[in-house]
């Protein structure tokens, strides 16, 4: 049977609940908006039910751990083509086995979950490292990101712990939503017209007047701590793959 859902993590957990409740044999699970029906296959839509989702999550926490439940959520954000089915397979293995199989690295499904989680973790870490805020006139620290996976929901805590006393906005220009902190709470936001938010480097007219100065100071710091006698571009690229250079104001050539 082919099942579709609303594309949220709760939706996917609701699917798991429904499969166990109705004892369905599943052949495929896809978010509704990715499903392309054809002549042979019929899909059934499963309604999201937060109470069901909660019970499945509790089940995962009980059978494995809170950490694994979080891992599954993080993997869900990876946007891998078969992620719904992979997560389902993992949860099924976990529920059907008498013991906790979440550290059975000899099993392909389990191992893949851990590998995807590692990739997500790495991307989150890179966002923690490579985000560069620019201070705007209205005193908001602003940064644009385009992460490899949909990791924005995993970022607020880190920045909140660090910057509780300044307003900041992180905007994913590819997925076209952001998270804004107004000194009280963080909110996920979208803009009808986000054309101006697509620019990584904000126009000087909206920046705080000290902003360009600090970017130049940072760039000159970056240039002077390099030791030319030890130049090692291979290692450099290993640490900062080229696709991340766009984030780093210190790598910009023009000022």
């Amino acid at each position, binding site marked *: 049977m082919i099942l579709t859902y609303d594309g949220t993590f709760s939706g996917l957990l609701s699917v798991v609940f429904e499969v166990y409740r109705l004892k369905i044999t599943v052949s495929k699970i896809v978010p509704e908006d990715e499903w392309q029906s054809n002549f042979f296959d019929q899909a059934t839509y499963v309604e999201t039910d937060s109470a069901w989702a909660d019970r499945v999550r509790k089940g995962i926490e009980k059978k494995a751990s809170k950490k694994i439940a979080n891992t599954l959520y993080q993997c869900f954000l990876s946007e891998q083509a078969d992620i719904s089915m992979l997560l389902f397979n993992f949860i099924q293995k976990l529920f059907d086995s008498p*013991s906790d*199989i979440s*550290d*059975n*690295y*000899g*099993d*392909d499904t389990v*191992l893949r979950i851990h590998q995807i989680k590692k990739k997500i973790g790495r991307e989150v*870490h890179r966002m*923690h*490292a*490579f*985000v*560069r*805020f*620019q*201070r705007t006139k209205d005193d908001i*620290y602003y*940064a644009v990101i385009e992460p490899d996976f949909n990791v924005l929901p995993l970022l607020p805590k880190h920045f909140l*712990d*660090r*910057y*509780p*006393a*300044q307003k900041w906005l992180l905007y994913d220009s590819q997925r076209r939503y952001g998270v804004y902190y107004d000194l009280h709470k963080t909110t996920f936001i979208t803009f009808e017209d986000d054309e101006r938010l697509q620019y990584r480097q904000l126009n000087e007219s909206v920046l705080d007047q*000290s902003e*360009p*100065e*600090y970017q*130049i*100071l*940072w760039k*000159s*710091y*970056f*240039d*002077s*701590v*390099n*030791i*030319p*006698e*030890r*130049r*090692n*571009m*291979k*290692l*450099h690229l*290993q*640490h*900062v793959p080229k696709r991340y250079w766009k984030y*780093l104001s*210190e790598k910009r050539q023009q000022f």
Partner: protein
Amino acid sequence: MNQRVKEKLEILSDAAKYDVSCSSSGSNRKNTKDGLGNSSGMGICHSYTEDGRCVSLLKILLTNHCIFDCAYCVSRRSNDVKRAAFTVQEVVDLTINFYRRNYIEGLFLSSGIFKNPDYTMERLVRIAKELRTQHKFNGYIHLKAIPGASDELIHEAGLYADRLSVNLEIPSEMSLKKVAPEKNYGDVYKPMNYLAETITGFKEEQKAIRRAPKFAPGGQSTQLVIGATPEKDLQVLNLANDLYKKQNLKRVYYSGYVPISSDERMPALKQTPVVRENRLYQADWLMRFYGFGVDEIVNDHHPELDLELDPKAAYALRNPERFPVDINHADYEVILRVPGIGVRSAKKIVAARKHGKLRMEHLKKIGVVLKRAKYFITCLDKDFIFLGKQPELIRQAFLQPTRSKVAANQLNLFA
């Protein structure tokens, strides 16, 4: 744009860059509701220079004026370089503004000695104090403890800093005297021992009283310059081992000597000994995370690390009687000693084998480097055609692809 600050920043970061410590990890300072920053647990490298080193902290000297004349140091009195000095306010301002933009994890502040040690230390402490108290800055602060400064000032530094460091620089006192006649080991060990004692004391106190104040929660570190003086790896690693055991150091950094100096007291190296430096770090890791004793890595028969092989592989080839290791039964500590298996893989192996015996294919997927490990392990598979080989043959196999590269490197080094 304040052109003068930019120029100072260039001079004083250039002068600070030969101190290789960059770590921003290992502390546990939480932020406050209206504060700025934290330094809890894992460090973050915000950028990397083209030499491949991490940029985590704003690493600067307060000044590069110095009354000492140490041959290995670019800021030595007799060296003809541009001199500059930051004001307290300038350092505070740069730190806060870089931190707010997520450029850095915090401040690494060192200094040349101007006037006298106490005068210098007092200014370093003042900056840290101002950051912590006036600006509620809870990011990472690494301060130099200046040899010769009073215990009181060193103590005060520990109350504001996450980590303190005193650099030994030269790995034996005899060599130190030759290149830095105004220095001696006693002066360096004095603040180091004071810190070791105080850090332990405060930790005890924290066990008893939860809200006891912190004292250098990220511990202390030091740096050894490699290749400027004739010490062998045996001496370097035994010194490091002592520092870890006796002074409880969090890190010993090894800095391959960059031939910046035209001082005649220094050797005329053509190139920084980067391979040796890398091997020393690998050996250091073996001592700290892999349960190796220092004499298992270097000893009187093997006083130098093998530049062509990583020290774990070299150990395995010197001790063939300890292998093969049965992946499905051996203890974690034993598995950790197999070349090609790191801490992560070893942990995964121990977890996964509870669920069923492991084969080569599992190991490969887990992340074991079979290219190296296959000579030293058995598992559920039946054919182990790589076991029982002569160490010399395994060595050849290890070196095959990169051999010419390593040889070329070493030739350059000693040419």
